[in-house]
């Protein structure tokens, strides 16, 4: 029903489209270096951030991204039991849709929620994370950060380490990275590695932490206690940290470390490494805002008009 383009799964973007999005992000990063960090590009447009699940960085970066593009931004935090959430999802989208927003940015705890929401609105829909399914803007900001740090994506080897089973970050990242010609490994305890991950996602899947040796980037995944329910997936966090925690002792020179946050320090990443200036964690947060500006700009602009030259012209006019 959605008549505009939406961003629900990262696999919907081609290699060229991802590249264009990252390039746009770099343009916006230049703007952010100026004294007045605001452009009039999306004046008169309305962005509704609809978050059914807690978020700090994704919510704030989408809000800032919208505001710096001069869009009207409304933040709605919804909550409730799982079934009530689902019912209110449709009703909330229909209700807020009456204000004729241009974009819904939606986060929800259930896989498929954003695809379901898109059936009830003509606005563009951006998936800001739906359960364990996808988190496409996280993938874009991670690629943005990697490209900036390493200079290229083609041929890069990225190892996601830890709680792959519950990670939409790893899932969307693996799809995007392979689209760009990078190699991806999933390294996880046997209980936290999805069955048939290699067949389903084309990644190298392993239980052996030593397999990070070949990676250019080691991506530590957060242990997602909130999605684990009853019954431990690992005997203890202490044992997990011993077996899979990322610290300086596991890394070789030149390997860069990423983490989508929030970090469980001392579990998936050591304190020392988290604070190491060579870690890319803060760079990811910075990248998050400009990439989300790029996504909003891309969805709300006439596709024919999306040329970096036009963008520069517009920005200069600001």
């Amino acid at each position, binding site marked *: 029903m959605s008549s505009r383009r939406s961003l629900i799964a990262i696999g919907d973007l081609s290699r060229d489209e991802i590249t264009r999005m990252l390039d746009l992000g770099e343009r916006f990063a230049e703007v952010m270096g100026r004294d007045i960090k605001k452009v009039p590009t999306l004046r008169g447009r309305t962005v509704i951030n609809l978050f059914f699940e807690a978020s700090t960085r994704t919510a704030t970066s989408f809000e800032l991204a919208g505001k710096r593009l001069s869009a009207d931004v409304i933040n709605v935090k919804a909550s409730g039991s*799982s*079934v009530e*959430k*689902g*019912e209110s*999802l*449709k009703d909330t989208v229909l209700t807020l849709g009456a204000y004729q927003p241009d974009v819904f940015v939606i986060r*929800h705890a*259930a*896989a*498929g*929620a954003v*695809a*379901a929401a898109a*059936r009830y609105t003509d606005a563009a829909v951006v998936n800001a994370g*739906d*359960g*364990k*399914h*996808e988190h496409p803007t996280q993938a874009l900001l991670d690629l943005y950060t990697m490209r900036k740090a390493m200079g290229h994506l083609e041929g890069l080897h990225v190892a996601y380490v830890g709680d792959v089973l519950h990670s*939409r970050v790893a*899932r969307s990242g693996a*799809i995007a990275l392979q689209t760009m010609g990078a190699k991806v490994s999933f390294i996880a305890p046997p209980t936290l590695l*999805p*069955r*048939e*991950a290699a*067949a*389903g*996602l084309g990644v190298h899947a392993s239980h052996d932490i030593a397999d990070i040796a070949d990676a250019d980037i080691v991506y530590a995944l957060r242990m997602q206690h909130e999605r684990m*329910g009853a019954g431990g997936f690992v005997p203890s966090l202490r044992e997990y940290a011993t077996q899979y925690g990322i610290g300086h002792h596991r890394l070789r020179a030149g390997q860069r470390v990423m983490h989508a946050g929030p970090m469980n320090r001392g579990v998936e990443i050591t304190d020392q490494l988290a604070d190491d200036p060579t870690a890319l964690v803060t760079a990811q947060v910075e990248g998050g805002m400009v990439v989300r500006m790029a996504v909003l700009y891309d969805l709300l602009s006439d596709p024919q008009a999306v040329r970096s030259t036009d963008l520069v012209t517009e920005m200069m006019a600001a």
Partner: protein
Amino acid sequence: MTRDDVLVQRPGPLASLVIRNARLLDPAAGIDRTGDIVVREGRIGGDATGLEEIDGTGLIVVPGFVDPHVHLRTPGREDTEDIGSGSRAAAAGGYVAIAAMPNTSPPVDDAQDLVRVRELAARDAVIGVGFICAITKGQQGSELTEGAELAALGAAALSDDGHPVSNAAVFRRALQYQHLTHLPLTLHEEDMDLSAGGAMHEGAVSARLGVGGIPAVSESIAVARDVALASYEDARIHICHVSARETVEEVRLGKARGVHVTAEVSPHHLLLIDEDCETLDAATRKMNPPLRSRTDRDALVAALIDGTIDCIATDHAPHGPSEKELPFEEAPFGVTGLETAFASLYTHLVLPGTLPLEILVERMSADAARVLDLPVPTLAEDAIANLAVIDPTATWIVGAGDFQSKSRNSAFLGTELTSQVQLTIAGGQIAWRR
């Protein structure tokens, strides 16, 4: 031992007509010829003089279909289906008899509940409807229902359906007690701990989509347990909606060892696979057991052909729009199936040459009746007329017209199917006419 007191149907005028020059196909009775078939006063055969004539040229007359596993949502969710609408949906699909599962609200688990739904069927059902009662009170898995009384009142079978009896000792007692009730036990097989949190088949596709997985072993492990217990107690079990190749193997092994085990498979498991879940559309793609891998699907088709799987059951599970509009992981399981079962299987298995029509008809009719000891529909002389007239060349878009069912959550919604049921005579009465 066939039980005649299980099926309930609304009384009505008996059909009298003659169908000329049709293909008459009743594999179980050894009938396959082109000619006329007379129905007079609700029975097959007799004098055609003066009867309404139907030109059957190009049409196929088959024994009516039997579905041992449907959900009619009565009592409790009559907004999504009731006995009248569900039986009309069945008639439109060529069915003459169906058996309704007891996972209603409240569950049909005692004499009073059973008598009540049978009264409703006697008022509303356009075909024969039987009622399966719970194995345990409230489907809670702890106390056995009063099976002897339920059997005497015409229960079709016993099942806790979607709430499988997890306690092996309780289930063992249910098997022992079967020697008194003689009621078939029909089993939704699932280890609920292994499948907890799952919404689709666990495999490469669930790994890619990040949707919680339901492992195949959650089904086969339960079947292995129950086949072992049925063997030990010399009891008889029927396995509902087999979905995994591992389960096929357990059933095959059980049969080879002489265990009284039968099995059914649904059209959607024979035709769709986990890759079809990419849309994350709960209304058409979320069911339990889930759509499994291509290898599983191929194993199910082979098992249906070789008889390891005895029959086809739709697991017709109507849900209202508001239930199915939820995110994929939160929506309830289930799709409808009665109106599309034959046409979907004919289109996608018979026409391509995978499944002989004769086997399809037998698996949907005689074989399905036998798993619940129901009367076997037949085109033989003197039998009560229970038949369907099918136009094998008609094409239609599922859902383009109205469904007879109150619900629209069909796995084949919007797709084109070939073959259509033109007429259904059930219990001697015209139940459906296009």
